[in-house]
């Protein structure tokens, strides 16, 4: 007698699928450009371990039901209609876990270019997460909704907030869940930090009419260390409450950042330019 074959479920990890039958790699890879990366062995090695079928379905904008039928079909397993209810539960689980809390600073990480070159940004993301302070958020920019990351980071106590700018342009903010209780929800404007090609605006900015804040620019690129540090702190001493200081530097001013936090300043760092880092600094409300 033939032993019963277990059908693929929405909660199954892709890795278990591929171990079961390698033909399923091709089935998944043909669903969307994002999943086509599964043909790349190193990427598959990482992605398949953390991605469930439901998450994969969400990645390629199709119903989990339909994907499950295709996968099971390849294995010769017929699924009766209405037998995939679990898939929806799992898929819905990947929605925004909560609203973005206010934060001291945002760590910017753009993996769009790395992914377009076939790179694997998972380690970079996890490194950025590991270095994230309690009052910081990670702003991840990706060419698709990084659904597999949500559950991975949720297990580590991180919530997320998602915004789609274009079909291949997503912003996701990751933050520690335990900061939620002590922070106000963030107004909607915070979720479009790159819309005007300037660094992320602080939440307090927006609350106080941030777009109307006066920008004071301080270019320290031609100063030898530690002059940038001294000049910036001098400038901040006279910075009015409704102004934001934009320090233009060659690199992230690592020695300045802890002093800013100690002295009650908020900051964001924009590393999107080549050989130029913009640090926006403003006073706590």
């Amino acid at each position, binding site marked *: 007698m033939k032993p019963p074959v277990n059908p693929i479920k929405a909660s199954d990890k892709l890795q278990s699928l591929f171990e079961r039958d390698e033909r399923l790699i091709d089935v998944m890879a043909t669903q969307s450009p994002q999943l086509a990366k599964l043909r790349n062995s190193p990427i598959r090695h990482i992605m398949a371990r953390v991605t469930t079928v439901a998450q994969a379905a969400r990645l390629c904008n199709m119903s989990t039901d339909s994907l499950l039928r295709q996968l099971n079909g390849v294995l010769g397993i017929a699924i009766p209609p209405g037998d995939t209810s679990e898939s929806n539960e799992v898929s819905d689980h990947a929605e925004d876990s909560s609203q973005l809390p206010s934060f001291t600073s945002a760590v910017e990480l753009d993996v769009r270019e790395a992914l377009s070159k076939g790179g694997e940004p998972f380690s970079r993301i996890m490194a950025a997460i590991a*270095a994230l302070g309690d009052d910081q958020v990670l702003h991840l920019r990706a060419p698709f909704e990084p659904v597999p990351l949500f559950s991975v980071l949720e297990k580590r106590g991180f919530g997320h907030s998602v915004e789609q700018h274009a079909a291949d342009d997503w912003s996701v903010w990751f933050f520690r869940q335990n900061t939620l209780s002590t922070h106000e929800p963030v107004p909607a404007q915070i979720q479009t930090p790159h819309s005007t090609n300037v660094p992320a605006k602080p939440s307090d900015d927006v609350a106080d009419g941030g777009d109307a804040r006066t920008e*004071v620019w301080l270019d*320290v690129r031609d100063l*030898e260390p*530690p002059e940038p*540090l001294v000049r910036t702190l*001098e400038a901040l001493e006279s910075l009015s409450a409704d102004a934001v200081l934009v320090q233009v530097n060659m690199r992230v001013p*690592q020695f300045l950042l*802890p*002093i800013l936090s100690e002295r009650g300043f908020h900051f964001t760092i924009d590393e999107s330019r080549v050989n130029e880092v913009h640090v926006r600094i403003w006073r706590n409300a």
Partner: protein
Amino acid sequence: MAGLTMQGTPSLRLPGEHFAAALVFLSVGAIGLIWIAPELSAGLYLSPHVAGVTHCFTLGWLSMTIFGALYQLLPVALGVSIRSERAGHVSFWTFAPGVALFASGVAFSSLMLRYTGIALISVGVLCLVINVGLSLRRAVKRDVVWAAITIALSFLTLTLVLGALLAENLHAGFLGNSRVQVLAAHLHIALLGWVLVMIVGISHRLLPMFLLAHNADTRWTRRALTGLAVGVPVLGCGLAVNHRIPYVTLPWIGLLLVEGGIACFLIQAVLFFKTRKRPRLDAGLRHAATALIFLAATAALAPLVLISGVEHRNLDTAYVLLGVLGGLTLYVIGQFYKVVPFLAWMARFRDDMGKKRVPTVAQLYSSRIAHTDLALLVVGIIGITIAVMTGIEPLARFAAILFAIGVALFASQIIRVAFGTSLAGVTATPIPTISRSPA
């Protein structure tokens, strides 16, 4: 000083204890140089005394300083903090006494001191390699600096293995006539693979920062690293086994690659200096620039040493002295003048910055004394090199004394930086380039 931390950096105590110990070893090495001057002038580089003093410079001064600098600079250079500060302290408290015991054991032919020393050094080095290695794994930015540190750590491990082999050979003698060849391999892998590769990587980040040379073509660092990363193992193998392939021997291939790497590094450094926006060089950068000249001179001498072989011991000894004292020690002293006063300044004025007028970093030490120590060190290095080449013992001792005085002045400067209180000429400067953003 405990408050001096930036995001991800350890407390100042960790690099501080390394820098303090390094300074002690440099001072001991400088005094030891006077002691071994007669043996140096006789070209007796295999003498236990010479080997002991050499390790004060290589392990105690150069390696110890690099260890301390790594802990402080990893977050700045690569944006990644050190994995474990505690492991850093364990590394220091095994490595520092280990070097002292090992150098003494070698110099005074004490088997027990040698074994204890090498065991402690091994623990210290392994702690550092694992600690920094794990930190490097987490680095997001994997550029030439990351590559240089990774390559240098690999060579450090190889150096340790060869060093342990040579130390055991002192007792067991199993290397026989190959001892000098293995010693040459150990020496070149340590100085070129570990110290110079690290210098190339760190300089890639620090030189443009200190010189304000942000427009320089930086591709030469990658070429330098490639030359050294490939050339050092080839040269090391070539020196150790002297393997011969048709028409050419392995050491020459290795030397060619290494010389190419050094040339690329020197070109990179010259580009940084030429494109600098800061016309006047301070004491630290002058030390570094002078060291680069010595490094070029050592590289020029290398083919002669390879041609002449082990029979010309005075030339061999002078070559190593010029490289260790002129090319590497002087360069590290230059970087010491930049990094240590900055850290001390941060510790002392952190709370006042922006609120009160604070002195500049340069005001923490005397520029006049710094330039005097540079002059003494340069004259001492040139003098001792000539003395060893020509075999003039009094000149060797006199030059060693000048060098030691130079080191003493440098040490006094650093002590003043760390503990000094009187600061003159405090000035304030206006805030530059503030403008309203375009509407």
